[in-house]
């Protein structure tokens, strides 16, 4: 009986001890270096940041107060045989909740990316480690219009739309934007209004859909949306002729393949079916992580059909 009691006590003690077990999901810290470099295709000012990974006590990474950006690096971008060395400087931080107002960054005001140019990035860290990458600047695109002037075919079909299309040989992401420029006699200056691509009714509520970033090589603007935008310009004003429509302008931002992949990996797949548990963020940085990409802006003025504009009571010229 004594042995049995001893056995029982041992079993209970084993179970009691084994009820819980300390578990740490963290493994020894691993230092990695990151480069974020997006070269702007229509600007002289380029900014590149270099940062390192960090660790914190516990599991709240926002408790980290030591800025991860690495100053003192040599950052160079080579285009068509010319090497542009970026200046090691401090710039204003957009989010100051964790770190100070300034962040270490590398700036160039000389590099003007050329269409279809190959760019080579080389970052030499203070310890001598080198991170590198390449990318190709996307070209400016030729935008084709469904009709030569917005509103030209407005009265010919019920509903209808105005469509812009463009060709691009590679995999890019596109961000189109259509704006109308106008003046009004009562408020000086040129005003703009963005045109949505369409309206959608969801649960009896009208939802305005603006052009989204995407892979489509076309963008359609429903005339219902254009009509509504034009009407909205003079909402509440009886005398429509005090408004003058100057022009419409389409701006098409084109992310190169690397930026497109990075964007997709951070913001969601552009695919048929997405399942992710652990995020796999795209990188094209050799020796580290991050992205080196470029984008290009195509701007084009679009004409309005005079009769179409006049039908709203606006002046054209």
């Amino acid at each position, binding site marked *: 009986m004594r042995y049995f009691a001893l056995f029982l006590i041992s079993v209970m003690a084993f179970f009691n001890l084994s009820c819980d077990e300390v578990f740490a999901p*963290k493994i020894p810290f691993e230092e990695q270096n990151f480069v974020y470099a997006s070269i702007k295709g229509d600007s002289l000012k380029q900014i590149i940041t270099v940062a390192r990974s960090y660790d914190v006590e516990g599991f709240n990474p926002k408790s980290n107060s030591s800025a991860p950006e690495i100053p003192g690096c040599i950052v160079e971008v080579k285009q068509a045989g010319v090497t542009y060395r970026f200046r090691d400087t401090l710039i204003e931080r*957009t989010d100051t909740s964790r770190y100070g107002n300034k962040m270490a960054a590398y700036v160039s005001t000389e590099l003007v990316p050329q269409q279809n140019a190959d760019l080579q990035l080389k970052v030499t860290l203070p310890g001598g480690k080198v991170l590198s990458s390449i990318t190709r600047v996307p070209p400016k695109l030729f935008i084709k219009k469904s009709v030569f002037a917005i509103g030209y075919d407005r009265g010919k079909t019920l509903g209808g739309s105005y469509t812009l299309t463009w060709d691009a040989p590679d995999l890019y992401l596109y961000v189109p934007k259509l704006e109308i420029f106008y003046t009004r006699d009562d408020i000086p200056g040129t005003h703009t209004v963005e045109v949505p691509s369409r309206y959608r009714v969801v649960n009896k509520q009208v939802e305005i859909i603006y052009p989204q970033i995407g892979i489509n090589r076309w963008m359609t603007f429903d005339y219902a949306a254009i009509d509504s935008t034009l009407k909205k310009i003079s909402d509440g004003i009886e005398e429509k002729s005090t408004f003058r429509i100057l022009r419409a302008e389409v701006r098409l931002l084109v992310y190169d393949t690397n930026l497109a992949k990075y964007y997709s990996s951070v913001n969601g797949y552009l695919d048929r079916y997405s399942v992710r548990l652990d995020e796999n963020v795209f990188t094209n940085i050799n020796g580290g992580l991050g992205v080196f990409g470029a984008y290009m802006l195509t701007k084009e003025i679009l004409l309005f059909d005079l009769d179409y504009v006049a039908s709203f009571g606006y002046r054209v010229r």
Partner: protein
Amino acid sequence: MTITTSATRIFLFNLLMVSYLFSQSTGTLRGFVTDSTHGGSVISANIRIESEKKGASSDIQGYYFIPGIKPGVKTVIVSNIGYVTKELQVTITPEKITQLNIALVPSSLTLDEVSITGTRRPELTDPSISIEQIPLEQIKSVPAGVEADMLRALKISPGVTSTGDITARYYVRGGGSDQNAVMVNGAVLYNPFHALGLFSVVDPEMIKMLEFFKGGFTSEWGGRLSSILNVVTRDGNKNRFVGTAAASSMSGKVSVEGPIPGGSFLVTGRKSYRPEAVQKFLNNRAAPFDFYDLSFKLNYSNPEFYENGWFTFHGFFSDDKIENNDPTKEDYKFNNSTLGMNWYQVWASPLSSNMSFTYTTFVGEVMPNLTTSKPRKNVVTDFSSNWDFTYIFESRDELWAGFYNKILNTELKLTNLFGSKTEIDKRGLDMVAYLKYKVLRHETVKIDIGTRLNIASASEQKPFFLEPRFNITWTPAPILAIRLGIGRFSQNLVTLSNEEELISIFEPWVVVPDYLKPAQATHFIVGADYYFTEWLKFSLEAYYKDIVNLVDINELKYTNLDPDFVQADGRSYGVDFAFDISRQNYFFKGSYSLGYSFKSKGGFEFPPRYDTRHSINLQAGWIFYDGWQINAVWRFSTGLPFTGIAGYYDKWNIPDPWSQWYAIGQYDPAFLYGARNAQRLPSYHRLDISLSKSFRLFFTKIDLDVSLLNVYDRHNIFYFVRDTGERVDMLPFLPSASLRIEI
């Protein structure tokens, strides 16, 4: 030359004469073994003619066939565990088939004589490997979570692992969960789970037996790489009408069965009424589950209509819903429907055939309502027609042949994150023939050799044409069987799911996309069964499984030009050891499995999330007093793999391109992960105990069951929240009870 030719002719003539005389002097005994109480077939009964040293085992229909018996009056001994052994006299007539149908009387006709259902000795004579036959009693002996469940009973089988208490999904010897087929009377169930995988849709009330093939399955089985679970449903009582009603803390169910002219019927139904009980198992305590399942089976056999022909009509329907009645939450709907017909025929010659038609549909749908989720819908329709033939030679060897047609249609409707709709539809025909020969003539060596022939495939790319299978069992002594199994397998219907997901709600089935090859596997299994005594059995099996062309999520898909899926390879190997002590009023079973499983993708090899290195299962049951029975299960397994946090970094989020550009943008903290699945969670162990009592009250039979899960409240980790480091544990200590009344 002439002398040689003449000698040959004389030899051949003599051989023919001897064969003729021999065949003239023997007869054949065949028939069906049934249970005397309800008339249903008795599987694996042992039918012996001791004087002839000949015998056979009854098959799933209860059918047995013993050829080559010398004429005269013979004593036939029929035995099976759980039944009173029966001795019968039968007269064998030369050149005739004598039919002897036998009704066995259960040894537990009174409740005081409840016995433990143990291991069946006749399996020593079968050349199959890695097969388990699990009767209903064994399923019920596992302490129930909410109620008895066949898939939870599987988890204590050696080589079967799981990723948690929360899911009934199982993994067999290192294979993925979609590599397991769950079939009801031969019809595939595409969604065998209720309540997000918490338990099986198959109500135990309808089960007669589970046939569980863990690998190396013979050539009549195919279409999956890892395992086949065939649920053989009960026939229904052929002698009297019986009704049962049962209630657990989650659902209520009824079943009705009874005789019809020339046969029997069985109808079972189950409906959830208290989702709160289910929600205890889940992280999402607010999930409003609603489900039902319904099955029926009709058996008909009438010699005046068709002699020795048995017709079965069966159906199975299940439906699961999560309806929030809140437009800000997603709703889910899953539906299975199966209708089938079976014709089993014993012909005048030693030929039997089985023809079946089944029509199965599965619909899974995600309705996003006003959430940011996207609508998804998966529809599978499967019309299958199978025809199997078995011819038994006088030598007892068997020739099996079959022809299977499956018209498959899979539809998947998806909307991506950018609102673009996609439909992936695939219609095709799987046409498979198989041929196999079972060498059963030798007492000590049994061989099953055959092949499947993939004549046509629903997938664009075809699996290999031949899938050879070879199983051999050598019994050097009546208590020892040494087994070997080798086979090739293919699978062209897969689920598009991420195995890394903890709970996967929507797992659509599709035919392998055109740009991918069907998955293929090769199994090598060697093992032994040893009966130390009549009631103590040891078994040991070692396996190696090589898998190629697995269809896996492309985790590096960044653009629409990247494929959704890529091919991965895998391999697993290990050893399963088990012992089984089965006595009249107690049993004790145990198993230990050592397993290694790896997947390789993109040149990188890693353990999948279900890779379990060591696992131990112990199960005991004891009928200790007046129908009271206590059962206990203790399970242990080493921790599952996970990917550790190696640090953090500030991830650049591309800002609104029209407001602020440059690299400044916004930076948000993100995890820096270590090597994939290189770490292990703490080990898992749990003790469950159930106490049950059967008794009669007036004209009813009542079964009471009280279960205590996780008796010592082990904190088994399910997952940890990376954002906070918080751990989410699996089931805590949880009592439950169920009541069953049979009239």
